[in-house]
């Protein structure tokens, strides 16, 4: 029934073919009081993958990847299909135990922790395939995280409503999550990850399958998250224009290896990146 709109339907849109102005204005109102819940020394609490490798039955999905997400930034993670982006996010959120290497939160080695421990330690994520609780309402979806993180039902409902409100989907609070339009589904997924503000938010292709304007609207929210919640965002996204505009740094994966890292301008000029990813058009 729910058609899965996967990455397969998304063509790469190259930055050189898209010359719309940068800096997407957030079209939705948001409270001016930015709630910086975690004002702290960023470098002390980076989320880092150190020399991560993952093998599935001997086949390497990712090999010796290093990556650091810092509080307050939007880090882009790009790479062709099958490059290992999701696998890396799985490692960074406890869904995949790396075959080699370590996951660090600040000084703490959190390799091998369960997903719920990752979330409780402040590392939240969304899923490429959505994974909303389809038989529950939108509000219950978001409440689940708040309750899971120790809030009372009452407080959970209030905070969940706030998160839905911010993302502009409060009107759908009583609807079943399984019948939402695609764009709303993605917003609810972000609200569910963001409800008790995490320190890190890892977004696995949140805008996949969206039109350019829907994509811009969603990224308007993503860009606001570091300032509003004080968290670090890792963004997997195929739309190069969006990535170049939103991210302060970019990491490029290809064939499970990290082939480049740097500012959007620097990464775009890397020969390896051009041949692996950008150069085809």
């Amino acid at each position: 029934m729910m058609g899965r709109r996967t990455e397969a339907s998304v063509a790469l849109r190259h930055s050189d073919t898209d010359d719309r102005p940068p800096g997407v204005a957030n079209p939705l109102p948001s409270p001016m009081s930015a709630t910086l819940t975690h004002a702290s020394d960023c470098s002390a609490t980076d989320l880092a993958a150190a020399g991560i490798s993952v093998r599935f039955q001997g086949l390497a999905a990712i090999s010796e990847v290093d990556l650091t997400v810092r509080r307050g930034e939007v880090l882009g993670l790009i790479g062709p299909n099958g490059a290992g982006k999701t696998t890396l996010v799985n490692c960074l959120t406890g869904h995949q135990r790396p075959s080699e290497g370590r996951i660090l939160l600040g000084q703490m080695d959190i390799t091998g922790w369960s997903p719920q421990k990752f979330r409780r330690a402040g590392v939240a994520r969304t899923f490429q395939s959505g994974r909303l609780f389809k038989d529950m309402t939108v509000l219950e979806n978001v409440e689940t995280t708040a309750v899971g993180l120790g809030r009372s039902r009452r407080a959970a409902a209030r905070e969940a409503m706030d998160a839905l409100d911010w993302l502009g989907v409060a009107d759908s609070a009583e609807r079943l999550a399984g019948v939402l339009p695609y764009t709303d589904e993605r917003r609810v997924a972000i609200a569910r990850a963001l409800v008790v503000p995490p320190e890190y938010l890892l977004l696995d292709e949140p805008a996949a399958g969206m039109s350019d304007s829907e994509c811009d609207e969603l990224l308007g929210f993503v860009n606001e998250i570091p300032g509003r919640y004080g968290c670090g965002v890792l963004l997997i996204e195929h739309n190069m224009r969006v990535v170049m505009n939103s991210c302060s740094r970019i990491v490029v994966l290809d064939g499970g290896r990290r082939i480049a890292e740097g500012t959007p301008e620097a990464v775009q000029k890397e020969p390896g990146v051009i041949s692996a990813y950008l150069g085809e058009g």
Partner: protein
Amino acid sequence: MSDARSAAVAFLRAAWTPAALVAALLAVVVVASALGAEGGQVAITEMLIRVVVVIGIYVFAGNSGILSFGHIGFMCIGAYAAGWAACDPEWKGLMLTGLPAFLAEHRYPMPVAVLGSAALGGVAATLFGMAITRLSGIAASIATFAFLVIVNSVYANWDTVTAGTSSMVGIPAVVGPWTSLLFAAIAIVVAYLFQISGYGLMLRASRDDAVAAASSGVDIRRLRLIAFGVSGAIVGAAGGVYAHFLGILTTDTFYLDLTFITIAMLIIGGIGSLTGAVVGVLFITLVIEVLRALEAGVTIGGAAIALPHGAQEVGLGVLMALVLIFRPQGIMGGQEVPSPFPPAGSGRLRAGRIPESENGKFVEPVR
């Protein structure tokens, strides 16, 4: 003023489902009493006790999405616990030489005995739950069945404590329709409170998508264990009430027949809602009574018709197959009683399907 009114509406909204269910059962008891049929009282009491059993199973299976075939084992444990507490001490002294003194030398009133049943059922479920909540869905279901077999063998052979294959006799048969209605009402309220609590919410999330639930900070294993314990306590209490209805206990009572009937009730009513659990018991009881009457034979226009023996079981099996084919989510299809106070916190569509990914063991790639 409008505050008081909105508070009243909020209360009605929250209390609607349990209130409607209790009212429905009350109506059944009142009508049956008015009809005054002798056998009717017994049938109604047995039905109400089954309401407690099926609600007990529902608390775990409905919320977690994992079917249990072992809960009648907790009923057995609860029933014998009540027997130990409520039997005549003289008989206990003769037959149950293995009982500790506080049970062997005293006789406890029914409410105390049933509390003991609930406690022992809950403890047994919590201990056993520590093992099964480590398993994934289908393996867990099979393990629950193994548990039933184990309980049955132990209780059938532990002569000094259970009187083995001979019966445990002399439990005061004090439970009738009204007492069992009271226990059914308590079970409804407890199950409903659990369902709307944070535990219920997180369990249902894990039923829909265990991977995403874990990423929401939900400790799935712990929640399943809690639900299993609560559910074992409710079914254990039902066993204690049943002991005080039968007056005599044999281990055969708590085995495959009862397991099959109660599971059929839950699935046909709809595993996805509390209303489904209650409706399933009412509906199947009616079907069984009709089939039983037909087995005994009816006379229509001078011609006597009787169904062959076993028609009851066959009929129930066919009915269950039909429901699974045409209405896989049961009669209620995951819905609670339709509420006149929308938007209710309860009456939403809720499918009761069994999830494919289980227990944090993610065989499929996580995407």
